[in-house]
């Protein structure tokens, strides 16, 4: 705890409002000393903000990326080879179509009118028409790549947060019950966890996702009422995310359950718990007041470090077409266009834009996890 004591005078100098150094204040000061983590936290906050306000940012690009309703238009492959059917953002500038250095077009109020030259969309003839540009190029359906990337953040972030929260909650409840009550309860509960450890994660997730996507596809043709219909409707509105949460969550809590159980076991016989029991504290009070505050730190740290894993899994599932529903922008699905559209040879922005978004996000979460570990789990500090 030498580090925490060293941090204390600084905290008193900097913020005299602090009454006393409680563990959370200590953690916050520890966290602030790690610059990479602070930058990551800011990055994540910015990404979350952009994702929440996605409709605002993509208005300029005018595409409703979720439905793509306005954006669908065909591109006539006149004078074009297959490779440059979808121009790079830079090509327009090279061909010098005047004022618009990007892949641009214009929009009538309702319908989209596009006049296409060899590489470019010409500038709007009418000044009153709204101008729009594909700053980072477009996809095969003419949807703006930047807008899709921004919407893709919604999918990745929600998968990361919901996955982590679910795993934390379920695993915590399961592990605390198992560890605190011990005996036969513990034995049975841990046998179940052992069993689930033998299930290959990706295999189960793929099977579940195939099942869910097929169910959802069948549902589109037929009407279904009741609870099933409600859930399917909700899933439809969420672009397939609801079932994805479920598929990712089925196995993700078991590691957390083991960790929580181990933590409870190590604290259960400590003197302060014994003292609480001696003065007649009930189980509920011991768990919530004495155990939980002590074990939460390492659990939160462990779960934060899992977030990139959830994001990766979602991206991979969408990459092979088993993630979100087609039409819902997701970084994994965007990267998969690299294969179908010859992105290896041209149109490199297809790969670059969603990849950068994905890497920046996971990088931020990884640095954040490290910072949180240093702050919340003193025993693992600096590892």
């Amino acid at each position, binding site marked *: 705890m030498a580090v925490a004591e060293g941090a204390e005078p600084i905290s008193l100098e900097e913020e005299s409002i602090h009454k006393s150094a409680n563990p959370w204040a200590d953690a916050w000061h520890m966290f602030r000393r790690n610059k990479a983590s602070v930058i990551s936290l800011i990055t994540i906050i910015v990404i979350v903000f952009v994702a929440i306000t996605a409709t605002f940012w993509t208005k300029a690009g005018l595409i409703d990326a979720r439905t793509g309703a306005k954006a669908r238009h065909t591109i006539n492959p006149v004078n074009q080879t297959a490779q440059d059917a979808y121009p790079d953002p830079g090509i327009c500038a090279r061909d010098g179509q005047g004022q618009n250095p990007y892949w641009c077009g214009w929009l009538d109020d309702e319908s989209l009118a596009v006049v296409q030259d060899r590489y470019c969309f010409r500038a709007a003839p009418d000044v009153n028409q709204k101008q729009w540009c594909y700053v980072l190029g477009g996809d095969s359906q003419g949807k703006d790549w930047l807008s899709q990337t921004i919407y893709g953040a919604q999918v990745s972030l929600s998968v990361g947060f919901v996955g982590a929260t679910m795993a934390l909650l379920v695993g915590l409840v399961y592990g605390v019950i198992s560890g605190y009550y011990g005996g036969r309860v513990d034995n049975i509960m841990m046998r179940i966890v*052992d*069993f689930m*450890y*033998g*299930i*290959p*994660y*990706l*295999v*189960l997730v*793929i*099977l*579940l996702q*195939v*099942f869910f996507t*097929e*169910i959802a596809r*069948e549902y589109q043709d037929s009407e279904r009422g009741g609870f099933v219909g409600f859930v399917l409707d909700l899933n439809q509105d969420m672009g397939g995310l609801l079932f994805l949460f479920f598929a990712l969550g089925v196995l993700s809590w078991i590691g957390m359950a083991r960790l929580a159980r181990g933590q409870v076991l190590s604290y259960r016989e400590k003197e302060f718990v014994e003292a609480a029991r001696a003065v007649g504290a009930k189980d509920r009070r011991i768990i919530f007041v004495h155990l939980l505050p002590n074990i939460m730190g390492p659990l939160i740290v462990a779960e934060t470090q899992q977030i*990139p894993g959830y994001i*990766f899994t979602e*991206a*991979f599932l969408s*990459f*092979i077409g088993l993630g979100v529903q087609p039409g819902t922008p997701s970084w*994994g699905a965007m*990267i*998969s266009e*690299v294969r179908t559209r010859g*992105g*290896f*040879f041209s149109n*490199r922005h297809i*790969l670059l834009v969603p*990849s950068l978004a*994905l*890497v920046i996000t*996971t*990088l931020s979460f*990884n*640095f954040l996890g*490290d910072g949180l570990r240093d702050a919340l789990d003193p025993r*693992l500090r*600096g*590892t």
Partner: protein
Amino acid sequence: MAVSETTNPNSQNVFMIIRKTLSRAVDMIGGTSMLIFLFRRILAAIPVLLAITLVTFVLSHLLPGGPFNAVGQRRMPEYLIQQLEEKFGLNKPLLVNTWNDGYFPDGDDWRIIGYRTEVHTEGGGARGDIHQVENEVLRIDLLDSQFFNYVWDALHLDFGPSLNVALRDQNVQVSEEISKRLPVSIQVGVFAVLLGFVIGIPLGVLAAVYHNTLIDYGAMFFAVMGQSVPNIVLGPILIIIFAVELGWVPVIDQQNQWREGPELSLYYLKILALPVLALGTGMSAGIARLTRASLLQVLHEDYVRTARAKGLRERVVIYVHALKNAMIPVATIVGPLLAAVLTGTFVVELIFTIPGLGKVFVDSVAARDYTMIMGVSLLYSIFLIAGNILVDIMYTWLDPRIRFD
């Protein structure tokens, strides 16, 4: 008898050698207590495997459509589908065959336990006259369902024929197909694990030795980067740089080298390079972080201080005294790593179009190839369980204080 008598002294000798090597092997894996522990773990794995079989079985059969009318296949007439289902036993009830299911193995009769007469034709040609032999076979109708038939066959190591349209016409068995594809996945996986250790351990050691210097920060930045770049990003980027732009390696294997297996040729190395790099980089990142953390912890131990105090050179202290103990947690991740590598190759196989097990699994799910789905998932489960057991064994090997009694 005469033959055995002449070889008797020799065979006794061989017997002794076998006994010696056996006892030596038992000692090597940690004595009889370890053997008992292993035995118990393997016994405990059996119900787990059965339960996993049940879960995967139910889940794969829940998928809409079947192997004969899956999406993207030519529509078959109804009677043909019925005949195929009868041929592969898919007309039977799924889990348990009750009276209500209306499936009667022996005509109209349904019994919990009974006998069925099976008629074989024997003889013909050189074997004499053709005649028919009737056999009474014990049958338990309740268990004459798809699931129990599958389990029964699987216990006999018969995993059934593949139901995928491309394979079932040639009567390809699941075990055949898997034994063809598994080596491909293993090639990628094993080399990736090797690369992970070869990069990861030196990096971690460097970072720990030069703790809180630029080298440390650089190594850890590489590690975090390696953990943050997923394979679906790294794979295409590697392809673009090394295959398309530089042209050093082919984009895909055009010589069927994956199937033919490892050989010491430039072409094989070229084929191997990108997938192994994509898979191994992420691994090396994790290994580097673990090595660093573990070594840092060990360097604060008393015996390291003692070693320094008696005037040993720093290099000797680190590489002889500290590193050996620091490797314990690193070595124990070999188990989960090997298990994870199989699912890891999943992603890499799809990106680099490698004809391995991951590709087979995704195809089989799309084709509703029930037997193949079951076969591959069971194999993954066995690897996973074996990996977990391996970790426990590793612990006792590396840290003799741990005992399973």
